[in-house]
């Protein structure tokens, strides 16, 4: 099996699974208990937080461990909205965000908030000038993703951060779920107040993640209770999950150092083979995320290609896994102004450091054969 659907989820590192089981067996104490087992669990949690902070170059108290990307995005968006609604009730985001951002915003619209969904250009890029133009006295939050999950477009978050810095009243949230470990994004001095990271996209486990919340950022918690995670996310800590997440953070950043070129080489190889295949048109903008290529094969039903390829042992996806069940066109591609022939026939190939060049070669061959095989029927 050749797994090329790493933006949907990744295979956990063996070390991560080992840490999870070891912590579950040995440190099952509740970090809030005052006896020794509790103290050891608390200590381990603290070390995990310290290491996470060190890896992200932020402060320990700025780390909030969560259950993943959806929770991180919801905590940030609803948390800011509810905590600062007296100051203003306007939110700026883009129309190509992940559903956990878009739906959170739509939910808030139902509560009386107003939301500006910024358009994107044909590459899927948000224009920083449009962000600035959308800011009003009422604006309390800008939420823009770093790397788009369908196209791999890298948003100009650095520039948007500079703009956000000039408006101290508003907060800037970045959904970094697809970018972390692949496309560096420094947090210090960036103007970013909140940043979502998910564990299972970086070879960690499902149900793990973290939210960076800059010191002094006030959030209304989604979970009230015992005051864990700086009172932003109450509930007995998932210590085993947290430790495994922090291990995944460390390992993916090490791989990013070592494997940067390997990933680029694979993408380049894949890009050139797709570029040469006449039925295929590449939707991803050149020079963006090193691990995502989105293509369209007009005239071919994407599901059919996926099934045919998976029979040959290659796993890729249509659109993003999170919205694959909707029959309609890709909203992201439609937002980029692509015709329906393209936006309804899109496929996504997403790589990880663990893929190999020969897998890419194999995939290109398999895709070629599949297209050839079906072109008589469908093409």
């Amino acid at each position, binding site marked *: 099996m050749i797994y090329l659907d790493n933006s949907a989820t990744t295979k956990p590192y063996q070390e991560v699974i080992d*840490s999870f089981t070891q912590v579950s067996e040995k440190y099952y104490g509740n970090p809030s208990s005052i006896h020794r087992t509790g103290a050891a669990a608390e200590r381990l949690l603290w070390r995990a937080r310290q290491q996470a902070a060190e890896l992200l170059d932020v402060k320990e108290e700025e780390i909030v461990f969560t259950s993943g990307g959806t929770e991180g995005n919801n905590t940030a968006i609803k948390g800011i909205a509810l905590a600062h609604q007296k100051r203003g009730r306007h939110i700026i985001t883009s129309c190509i965000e992940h559903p956990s951002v878009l739906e959170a915003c739509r939910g808030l619209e139902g509560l009386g908030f107003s939301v500006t969904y910024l358009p994107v250009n044909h590459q899927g890029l948000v224009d920083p000038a449009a962000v600035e133009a959308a800011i009003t006295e009422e604006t309390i939050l800008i939420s823009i993703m770093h790397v788009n999950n369908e196209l791999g477009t890298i948003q100009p978050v650095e520039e948007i951060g500079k703009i956000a810095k000039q408006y101290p009243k508003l907060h800037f949230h970045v959904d970094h779920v697809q970018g972390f470990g692949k496309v560096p994004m420094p947090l210090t001095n960036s103007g970013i107040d909140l940043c979502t990271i998910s564990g299972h996209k970086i070879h960690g486990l499902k149900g793990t993640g973290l939210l960076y919340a800059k010191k002094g950022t006030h959030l209304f918690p989604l979970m009230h209770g015992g005051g864990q995670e700086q009172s932003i996310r109450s509930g007995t800590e998932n210590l085993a999950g947290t430790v495994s997440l*922090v291990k995944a953070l460390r390992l993916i950043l090490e791989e990013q150092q070592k494997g940067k070129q390997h990933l680029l080489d694979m993408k380049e190889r894949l890009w050139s083979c797709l570029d040469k295949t006449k039925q295929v048109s590449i939707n991803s903008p050149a020079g963006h995320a090193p691990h995502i290529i989105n293509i369209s094969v007009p005239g071919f039903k994407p599901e059919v290609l996926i099934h045919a390829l998976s029979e040959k042992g290659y796993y890729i996806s249509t659109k993003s896994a999170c919205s694959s069940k909707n029959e309609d066109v890709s909203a992201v591609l439609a937002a980029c102004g692509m015709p329906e022939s393209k936006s309804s026939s899109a496929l996504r190939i997403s790589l990880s450091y663990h893929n190999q060049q020969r897998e890419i070669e194999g995939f290109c061959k398999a895709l070629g054969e599949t297209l050839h095989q079906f072109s008589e029927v469908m093409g």
Partner: protein
Amino acid sequence: MHYEYILIRYGEIALKGKNRKFFTQKLQENVQSELKDIPDIKVKRQRDRMYILLNGQDPEPIINRCKTIFGIHSLSKAIKVDNEEEQIKKAALFALQEAQGVNTFKVTTKRTDKNFPVRSQQFNQVLGGYLLKNTEGYTVDVHQPDMELRVEIRQDGTYITSQKILAAGGLPVGSSGKTLLLLSGGIDSPVAGYLTMKRGVQVEAVHFHSPPFTSERAKQKVFDLARQLTKYGHSIRIHVVPFTKLQQKVHQVIPHGYSMTVMRRMMMRISEQIASREGILSLTTGESLGQVASQTMESMHAINEVTNYPVLRPLITMDKEDIIDISQQIDTYDISIRPYEDCCTVFVPDAPKTMPRKEKVNQFEQAEDFSDLLTETLENIEVVTIDSQAKEEEFDALL
């Protein structure tokens, strides 16, 4: 082009006369030890400055670490080129463009190699003009520039240095002897430790632990505080004193108004004993005049009676807010406010005497025999060495 050196300017050491070499050597050792895990770099000492030869290493993390080493006044990244106009221009252009947040600059040339054909003043203008012509958005400001680009034309080459980054100042740790810090876990004592370290003092710590009245977490808190302090110098040895029995006895036999005073005197006696056996010449506390009952003039008078060692009290005249400010700067505050009981908060009488009388304290102490308990306590001290890197191998493997 890239930076080849980091230039280190001395702080107060520069004022030292004949002892200067002792101080600079100490500083060199401290810098080397702080950077020992970075391969290929070299730390070179000269009379008036020090250089770190980068050999291809990224200067930024090195500068960040050096910022907390006492004895360094400031740092700058530097490039060395031949005494040749074109090369100097290119290096200056690189330094200007690489610097962050700079809108205005000035060039200061110092020409010690008089063979170089252009005079300093003239060369400032040549270089300034070249930089303005080859960049956009910069202006020259000779009074308050964002960046002073220093060009030193020496016999062995020309050094171009970038922005001056201020460091911690003070004297190199280890150049002023050793002290024993009474480290409780509160906000004050780590700040006192930090300030003595800043004056070049090497610190060991003593902590009084009273299980089960104080918990493992309280002890861990003190270790974490000490680890925070290691950032400013060296690994720290902590003498953990098993204080329960002695504290209980004091509580039982001494009238409650005086139990706190006697307890403090016991702490002083034990600390002095530790200092004496470790060859440490002074004690340090986080006392601040009038802050609590034990820190009134009368209390200090009564407590200090039991030791002849100098007791350093760097916070003695400071306000609580100022102490908190420093504790936040040195990242000990968040650890200090963890809510665990320490030996000073258990057995606290309702109304400790703020004006204890020395004669009375002596009278109460003499009525009892504490000597066996004191000996037993001293024999059971546990010594823990805290390194800058938390060594918890079991945890590290999991993470």
